[in-house]
C-alpha cells in the first residue's frame, strides 16, 4: 500500500500534472454549487419516485440550501431577468439589455463546457505521455483515427452541445420552468410599461396570456422581447410560455430516456450475445428464437398498449412516463443490437486465444469479459449511438401523438405537436425550431457513430500497406 500512495503523490507533484490538477480544481470551484444542485436534485427525484414517499418539506429546504451556494454560471451571478426603468436596465448583469445578458450567460456556459472537455483531453494526453507504463496501446490508434475524422468530430461537437444543454438547462434558459410554466401564477415580475412610462408589476401567468404566439396577428417570434420586456430567444409558444426554456428542459428528458434505454438495451444485448457466442449450439439457437419472437412483436402497438395499461401505476409517474418509455424501448429494442453484435461475437469466439484461455482453466464468465467483450464494445458504441438517435426521434414522435411524455413535463415532440396548427403562419417557430433541433441532434449522434466505426475499423488503417511493404510475409 505504501508503494501505491507514494506513487500517487509522485504523480501529482510532477509539473504538468500539478498544473492540470490545479486547473481542475478551479473549474470545480466555479461550478460547485450547480454540480451539487444537480446531484442532489437527481437524488430528490429518485426518492420522490419511490412509491409512497410524499414528504416534501425537508427535501425542499435541502434543495434551497444547495441552491444558495454561489456558482459562476447561474442566473444569480449573471442575471438576465431585469427590467427597463426608464433610463437603463435594472437587475440584469452589468446593466446590459436582457438579450445581451442572456447571450453572455449562454456563451459562458458553453465556454465552460468546452473548457471542461478540453481539460479532460489534456489530462488524457498527460497520462498517455508521462504516466502510462505502456508506450502504446491499441486504443491510441483508434483515438488518432477518430481525431482525424471530420464528420465524427462534428457529430461529437453536436452531441456535446446537446448534453451541455441538458446538463445546464436550469441555468441556460432565459427563465425557469417553475416561474414560467409550473407555477406561473405564483410569481410576479416587474416591467416597464410604455403606456404609463413607469415600472409596473404583473403576475407571470397573466403576462403569458398576453404573449401568445398564435398566428400572424398575435406573435412573439424569434429573438424578440414580448410586451413585458422579457426576452425570448426562440419566441413564445401558443400558450405564451417561453419556447427556449421549454426545449432546454425537454432536452433533459430526451437524453435521459435515450441514454437509459440504450444502456439497458446494450447490456441485455451484450450479455446475451456473448453467452450465445461462447456456448454456441443449442443456446445460440434458443437465443435466436427468442429474439425473433421479440422482434416479431410490433413495437409501436406494444408501446401504446403498455403506456395505456400502466397509466395508473407508479411507473408511469416517474419522469411523467419517461421511465416507462425507456423500459419499453429497452426491452423491445435490444434485439436490433443483439443481432448486430452476434456476428462479431461469434467471430471472436472462434479465435484461438479463447481456446488458450480455456486450456488453462479460465472461467467462462471471465473469458467473456476479458477476451470477448473488448472486441464487442466498439460495435456497441456504434450501434448504441445510432440507436440513441433513433430513441430520441421515437420519443418525440410518441409525444407528438400524445402518447409519450405527458404534460406538464416539457418534451420536444410535444412542442411540435402544439405548434402544428401555426406552421404556415408567423408562429412557425413553435414547430420548426424543435424539429430542426431534433434533426440536428440525431444527425449528430449518427455522425458520432460513423466516426467511432471508422476509428475502430482496422481496414481504414494504413496497416495494410505496412504488411505489404514487409514483403508480404511468407
Amino acid at each position, binding site marked *: 500500500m505504501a508503494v501505491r500512495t507514494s506513487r500517487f503523490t509522485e504523480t501529482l507533484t510532477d509539473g504538468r500534472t500539478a498544473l492540470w490538477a490545479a486547473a481542475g480544481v478551479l473549474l470545480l470551484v466555479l461550478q460547485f454549487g450547480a454540480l451539487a444542485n444537480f446531484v442532489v436534485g437527481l437524488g430528490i427525484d429518485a426518492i420522490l419516485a419511490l412509491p409512497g414517499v410524499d414528504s416534501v418539506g425537508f427535501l425542499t429546504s435541502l434543495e434551497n440550501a444547495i441552491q444558495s451556494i454561489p456558482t459562476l454560471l447561474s442566473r444569480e451571478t449573471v442575471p438576465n431577468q431585469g427590467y427597463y426603468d426608464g433610463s437603463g436596465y435594472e437587475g440584469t448583469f452589468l446593466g446590459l439589455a436582457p438579450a445581451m445578458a442572456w447571450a453572455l450567460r449562454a456563451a459562458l456556459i458553453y465556454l465552460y463546457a468546452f473548457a471542461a472537455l478540453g481539460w479532460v483531453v489534456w489530462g488524457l494526453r498527460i497520462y498517455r505521455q508521462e504516466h502510462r507504463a505502456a508506450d502504446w496501446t491499441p486504443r491510441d490508434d483508434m483515438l488518432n483515427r477518430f481525431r482525424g475524422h471530420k464528420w465524427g468530430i462534428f457529430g461529437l461537437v453536436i452531441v456535446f452541445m446537446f448534453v451541455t444543454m441538458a446538463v445546464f438547462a436550469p441555468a441556460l434558459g432565459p427563465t425557469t420552468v417553475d416561474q414560467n410554466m409550473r407555477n406561473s401564477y405564483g410569481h410576479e415580475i416587474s416591467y416597464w410599461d410604455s403606456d404609463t412610462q413607469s415600472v409596473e408589476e404583473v403576475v407571470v401567468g397573466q403576462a403569458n396570456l398576453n404573449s401568445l404566439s398564435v398566428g400572424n396577428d398575435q406573435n412573439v417570434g424569434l429573438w424578440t422581447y414580448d410586451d413585458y420586456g422579457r426576452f425570448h430567444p426562440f419566441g413564445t409558444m401558443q400558450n405564451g410560455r417561453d419556447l427556449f426554456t421549454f426545449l432546454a428542459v425537454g432536452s433533459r428528458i430526451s437524453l435521459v430516456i435515450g441514454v437509459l434505454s440504450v444502456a439497458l438495451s446494450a447490456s441485455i444485448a451484450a450479455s446475451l450475445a456473448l453467452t450465445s457466442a461462447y456456448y454456441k449450439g443449442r443456446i445460440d439457437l434458443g437465443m435466436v428464437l427468442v429474439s425473433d419472437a421479440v422482434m416479431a412483436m410490433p413495437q409501436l402497438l406494444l408501446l401504446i398498449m403498455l403506456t395505456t395499461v400502466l397509466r395508473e401505476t407508479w411507473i408511469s409517474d416517474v419522469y411523467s412516463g419517461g421511465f416507462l418509455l425507456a423500459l419499453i424501448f429497452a426491452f423491445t429494442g435490444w434485439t436490433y443490437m443483439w443481432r448486430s453484435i452476434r456476428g462479431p461475437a461469434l467471430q471472436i469466439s472462434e479465435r484461438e486465444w479463447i481456446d488458450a484461455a480455456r486450456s488453462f482453466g479460465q472461467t467462462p464468465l471471465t473469458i467473456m469479459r476479458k477476451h470477448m467483450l473488448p472486441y464487442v464494445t466498439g460495435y456497441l458504441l456504434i450501434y448504441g449511438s445510432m440507436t440513441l438517435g433513433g430513441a430520441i426521434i421515437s420519443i418525440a414522435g410518441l409525444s407528438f401523438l400524445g402518447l409519450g411524455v405527458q404534460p406538464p413535463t416539457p418534451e420536444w415532440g410535444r412542442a411540435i405537436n402544439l405548434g402544428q396548427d401555426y406552421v404556415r403562419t408567423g408562429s412557425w417557430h413553435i414547430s420548426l425550431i424543435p424539429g430542426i433541433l431534433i434533426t440536428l441532434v440525431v444527425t449528430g449522434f449518427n455522425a458520432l457513430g460513423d466516426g467511432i466505426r471508422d476509428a475502430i475499423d482496422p481496414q481504414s488503417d*494504413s496497416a495494410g*500497406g*505496412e504488411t*505489404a*511493404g*514487409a*514483403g*508480404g*510475409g*511468407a
Partner: protein
Amino acid sequence: MSDTLLSVENLRTVFHTDKETIRAVDGVSFDVQRGETVGLVGESGSGKSVTARSVLGLVEEPGVIEEGSIQFRGDELVGGNWDEHRGDIAIVFQDPMNSLNPVYTVGNQIKEALRIHQDLRGQEATDAAIELLEDVGIPDAARRVSEYPHQFSGGMRQRAVIAIALACDPDLLVCDEPTTALDVTIQAQILELLDDLQREENLGVLFITHDMGVIEETTDRVNVMYAGEFVESAPVDELFDNPRHPYTRGLLASIPGRTAGDERLPTIEGEVPTSTSGPTSCRFAPRCPHAFDDCEQVHPERIDVGDGTVDHEAACLLYDDRFEESAPEEKFADDGGERA
C-alpha cells in the same frame, strides 16, 4: 525468338506509408530462360513476394515500382504494359482457397480464362477445360469440371489453380509458395506435376518459396534474398554444395537435419530489418558472425565466387578483393555446406 523470357534489371519497389518509405525490393536483377526454373528463396520480410508481384504488375497503392526494368520477351513492362502480356505470364498463388472464387464452379473459372486468352467458348471450352483438368492429374475430370471449389480437397484445388494458369497458354509461370499450404505427400505430387508440365510445355518458371528442400528439389538456379536484395545466386547444386554468403550458410545450417547429430541448431541472431534507407552498408552486417568494420560502411556488390565453371555470385565483402586486408582470416573453403 530468344530463349530469355524474363529479364529483370535493377528493380526497386517501394511502399510509401504515413510513417516511412519501405524499400521492399531494392535493386534486384535476374533472368528466366525458357525451360528453366529459377528459384527465389528468402524468409518473411525478404521481399520475395513483392518481387513476384512486381513482375506480375500486381503492386498496388501504397506500393510503386520506382526504378528498374522488367522485360518480357524484350517488351518493357514497367510503366503499365502488363495487359498485353497477361496471357503469357501465369500465376499460381499460395492459398488455392483464396485464388478460387467459391461461388463459381471450377470449370466455369477455367473457361473464363480460356475465353479471355484463347477465345474458346461453349462446348469447345468445356472440352478444353476437361482436358486441362486431366492434364493436371485430377481424376474423373468430366464430372469434376462442374463442381465447386469447396468440393475439392486442398491438393486438388491447387491443381485446379494450375489448370487455370495453363488455360492462358503461358510462356512463363510464376509460382508464389504454391505448396506451402499443402501436406508433404500432396506437395510431392504437385511438384512432380509442375516438373512434368514444364517439360511438356517448355515453360519458364519463377518459383518463390522459403523452403530450402523444395528449392533443392525443383529449381535449376537459385537466388537468395535478404532485406530486399539478392545476396547470392548460383545453380542449385552449387549453392547447396558451396554456399558462400554468411546468410545462406546460416540459413542452411539452421534447418534441422542438416547438422549431424543431436546438437543445438546453429542460429542467426537478430531480426530481419525493414529497409527504409538506401543501401549504404551491408544489410546483413548486424547479424553476421563474420562482419568487420567495412561492412557497416560499404554496400557489397555482386562478385563472382564460382570457380570458373559455374555462374555463382555473392554480395559479400569477404569475397571482395578490395577488402582483402581487413577481412577476417577465415573464408569458406569448398567444404561449405553439408549435404546429408
